């Protein structure tokens, strides 16, 4: 059976909250493998009046955040990781299309590797089936990563 998370359920796996929660629904996921879903952008988003007044569109940094939050769900749905905080380590991102008020950003993320608190993944965002953004991402659960790090030399 396909697993999904509605807007309330996903809060168990994604620690970000309004106004920084950047995903609305997880339509399907397999823990440790992938997570897909969407974010609807309405005129009520806090950033549209300021980015920009005459041409409102979603800031690239927030598009990246959408992709990172969805990838996070693919990891935090693994046993024992529910609600853990993730941090970004390295991202290589490309923006292809402006995302405007009223657009629905479909997010597709895939885990390439998950080991010792570090996740390498790929993410893509689509609007009306057109690629709007994509990224190669490295995120971490610091709580796990820190267990493997040598102490600093004195």
């Amino acid at each position, binding site marked *: 059976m396909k697993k999904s998370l509605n807007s309330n359920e996903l809060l168990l796996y994604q620690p970000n909250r309004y106004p920084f929660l950047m995903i609305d629904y997880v339509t399907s996921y397999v823990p440790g493998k992938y997570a897909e879903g969407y974010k609807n952008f309405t005129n009520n988003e806090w950033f549209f009046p300021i980015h920009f007044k005459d041409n409102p569109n979603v800031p690239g940094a927030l598009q990246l955040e959408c992709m990172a939050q969805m990838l996070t769900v693919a990891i935090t749905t693994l046993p024992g990781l529910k609600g853990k905080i993730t941090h970004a380590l390295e991202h290589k991102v490309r923006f292809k299309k402006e995302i405007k008020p009223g657009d629905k950003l479909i997010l597709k993320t895939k885990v390439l590797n998950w080991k010792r608190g570090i996740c390498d993944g790929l993410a893509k965002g689509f609007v009306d089936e057109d690629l709007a953004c994509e990224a190669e991402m490295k995120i971490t659960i610091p709580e796990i990563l820190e267990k*493997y790090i040598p102490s600093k030399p004195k």
Partner: protein
Amino acid sequence: MSNKEKYAKVFIKCFSLDKNKLKKDVKYNSVPKWDSVGHMNMIAKLEEEFKISMEMDDIIDFSSFKTGIKILKKYKIKI
């Protein structure tokens, strides 16, 4: 390629080092790229290169180029 060359190559590649730098030993956080992410990347490359899987305590103790040589002996890798 000898184990010594393979070992040095991982360090040079992961941390963008000059070969000469390794002669004096290199320690965790002593070069810009050997940070927490660089550390895990280097461990993953060594595991791949020597087809081993390192234990958590060894990953934590792996704090310098020279210390790493001793640790790899535990995995029957002679540098």
